[in-house]
């Protein structure tokens, strides 16, 4: 384990719209920012063999995920001219329609924020040890597969 600062990204339960608004509002004092890019992952009520997903339960290898996220953050700051980047991922049961992932990047010129946000989301999906269990209405579940 190296010495780089490890920030928490996990929050129990969904990411609330009010929390997102608060994050946005906090950037009003950073007047070198010209563009923000935000990605929000929302739980879908998919139909699977006639059963409807009513929620996803997220679990993680938290310690490893936070270290992995720190490395991703370092890479992204090295590659893009960002002012800041914030990542929040839900753990626990997140109902269909609720938000489970919030990635927020800001930069002077829009391209850096946009490209960094997309890169961050792709790396989160591919590299973070997080698992989603899709819980069906009534009973049963299946394990989510990322593509």
């Amino acid at each position, binding site marked *: *384990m190296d010495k780089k600062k490890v920030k928490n990204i996990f929050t129990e339960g969904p990411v609330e719209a009010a929390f997102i608004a608060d994050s946005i509002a906090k950037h009003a004092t950073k007047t070198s920012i010209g563009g923000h890019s935000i990605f929000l*992952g929302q739980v879908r009520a998919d139909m699977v063999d006639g059963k409807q997903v009513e929620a996803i339960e*997220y*679990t*993680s*290898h938290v*310690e*490893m*995920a936070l*270290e*992995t996220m720190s490395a991703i953050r370092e890479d992204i700051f090295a590659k893009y001219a960002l002012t800041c980047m914030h990542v929040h*991922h839900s753990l626990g049961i997140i109902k269909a329609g609720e938000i*489970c*992932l919030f990635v927020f990047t800001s930069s002077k010129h829009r391209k850096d924020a946009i490209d960094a946000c997309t890169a961050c*989301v792709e790396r*989160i*999906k*591919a*590299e*973070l*040890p*997080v*698992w*989603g*269990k899709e819980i069906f209405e009534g009973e049963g579940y299946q*394990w*989510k*597969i*990322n593509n």
Partner: protein
Amino acid sequence: MIEVMFFGQFKDATGVSSIMVEEVANTDMLIQMMKKRYPALESSTYMIAVNNAMVTENTIIRHGSKVAFMPPFSGG
């Protein structure tokens, strides 16, 4: 001792989130041991992390290490 952790469907399959095992020399030997104890692992796609770092080749396991058995990630 070594801590062996199971995540996602492997926690379901083994019925445990982590177990302590005696010293095992390397990850290949640990994998063999775990597949024997939990046959459900046999047919699964798994990834192994030793002390939070992914390993893809046989890796020495030092005393006090934590080894994670992980199914494919599905966050976000």
